[in-house]
């Protein structure tokens, strides 16, 4: 059930949403399309779903060219950011919709919908209307509705974007567990790098209508192909002309090889992390230290410090 996107281009009037994008999404994987809004990731997902058609290029699902098929002919499940709940139908009828369209026998529909409502913990809400559910519950209903027709691929367009942080985290974990149970090829569009890093098997970073890099979360985080990817996946700061992560900087009172001198300007504590702004000759550098490392460092504003990017072996040591 792999998805192959082959040299897709799409323009909306004068705006180029996608230019010559190629991408391969492995069968059974959970792949995140990650990028800033307006970067083209949603358009790409909608083209895979058949909700938009490309100006050029082709889409193959499971080896079949589906570029010009209507959405209803593609065997997909799609989940929208704002749930797209059928407001006039009960939760049960929402989930049953695809099965009713396929004219499945009544008792099969009842059985399957009951199972799915149990899976998404909504069995007690079967007779409610979507307007009587919370956002998180509505989105779980939308997921059950998409899964009901046993789609070959599941496409999620910013599915947690409209939810509160707590609910968002909970649903994210739940989605990961669900995917481990039912390994249907899944594509998740998100602008939240934490969400992508936490949930996805593979991440494709999409920006300005192009795929910047595709790979495992570890690869993208540790070996970003561009400054954009590095900056989008996590915090960055510039030290001695190079882009580094603030937590990959050593801060000490003594001069060591390869260290840059600086003066502490501001110190703030955010939970277990201490964030330091230091002024060097090249500008301000941001350093993040753990509590233990911060305890031994000279952190008074005005203190003179030495800053050094950690060597790769040092990163490896730190991970042990």
């Amino acid at each position, binding site marked *: 059930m792999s998805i192959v996107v082959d040299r897709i281009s799409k323009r909306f009037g004068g705006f180029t949403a996608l230019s010559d994008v190629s991408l391969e999404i492995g069968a059974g994987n959970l792949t995140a399309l990650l990028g800033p809004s307006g970067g083209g990731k949603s358009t790409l997902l909608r083209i895979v779903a*058949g909700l938009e058609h490309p100006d050029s290029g082709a889409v193959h699902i499971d080896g079949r060219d589906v570029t010009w098929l209507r959405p*209803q002919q593609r065997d997909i499940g799609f989940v*929208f950011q704002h749930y*797209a709940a*059928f*407001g006039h139908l009960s939760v049960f009828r929402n989930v049953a*919709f695809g099965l009713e*369209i396929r004219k499945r026998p009544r008792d099969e529909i009842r059985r399957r919908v009951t199972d799915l409502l149990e899976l998404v913990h909504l069995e007690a809400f079967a007779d409610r209307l979507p307007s009587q559910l919370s956002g998180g519950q509505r989105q779980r209903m939308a997921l059950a509705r998409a899964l009901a027709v046993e789609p070959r691929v599941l496409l999620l367009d910013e599915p947690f974007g409209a939810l509160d942080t707590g609910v968002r985290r909970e649903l994210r974990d739940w989605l990961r567990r669900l995917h481990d149970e039912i390994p249907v090829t899944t594509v998740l569009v998100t602008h939240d790098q934490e969400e992508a890093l936490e949930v996805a098997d593979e991440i494709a970073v999409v920006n300005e209508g192009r795929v910047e890099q595709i790979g495992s979360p570890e690869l993208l985080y540790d070996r970003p192909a561009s400054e954009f990817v590095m900056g989008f996946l996590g915090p960055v700061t510039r030290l001695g002309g190079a882009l580094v992560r603030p937590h990959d900087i050593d801060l000490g009172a003594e001069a060591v090889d390869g260290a840059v001198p600086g003066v502490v300007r501001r110190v703030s504590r955010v939970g277990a992390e201490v964030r330091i702004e230091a002024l060097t000759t090249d500008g301000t550098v941001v350093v993040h230290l753990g509590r233990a490392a911060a305890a031994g460092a000279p952190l008074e504003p005005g203190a003179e410090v030495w800053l050094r990017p950690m060597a790769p072996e040092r990163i490896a040591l730190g991970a042990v």
Partner: protein
Amino acid sequence: MAEPATVERVERDRRRARPTPVGRLAVRWVVIAYVVALVLVPVVMVGWRTFEGGVGEVWDALRQPEVLHAFSVTGIAAGVSVLLNLVFGVGVSLLIVRHRFRGRELLSRLIDLPLSVSPVVAGLALIFVYGRFGWFGGALDSLGVQVVFAMPGIVLATVFVSLPLVVREVAPVLEEIGTEQEEAAATLGASPSQTFWRITLPSIKWAVAYGVVLSLARAMGEFGAVKVVTAGGVVGSTQTVTSLVEQKYGEFEQVTAYSASLVLAVVAVICLVVITVIRRKEQPS
């Protein structure tokens, strides 16, 4: 520096913040008097004058063949034009909300035209086009189809004046519900027609009902455009209720004129009640 807050000062500010009771009462009574003089008194007068000679007289007046015929003409014209407006109105709404094409904005403005054009002008325009010496009139005439001075003309005139009512109710609701539900239905396997019947129509049904009731009220009361295309209406043939009222009133058959008017007014009030109920239903969703 701010004035120190004393009990007297707070009391004074509170008095100033509120409109004076006299001013408030004056505004209220002017508005009430205006509505009573313009709407309530005339409508009540119609009812009162109708029954001045007793119920029997009204009953006899309404049972005259020409009156019954006028009601059937108005009923058929209103029914057919409401049906046309329903189908056409929903179709046009879908077109201007769901599709992007050249001239869309122009079409949308054209739909509103009947609201601003005088019905008399509309009637004349229809004669120019469909009359015997109009654009299509000759061709239609040779096929044996008479539009002007006949039922089709009455229906056309009525459709023309009530054209925007369904569209103006349905289009904003379509805009508001957006396309996501329809797209979701498509991804779940629904064809465009299944999506329309199962998803779109249930979402706009109250707006459609509202538009239909408004169209009906408008169609029943239409006078100017119909009068022009029927040249005043032929008694027992193309005369509508509104023309009948005008004619009977002119001939001093007041009871007939008042009775027919009252029936129109009652239908309008029923429409109003139905609209109010629909409005309530539309609110929560």
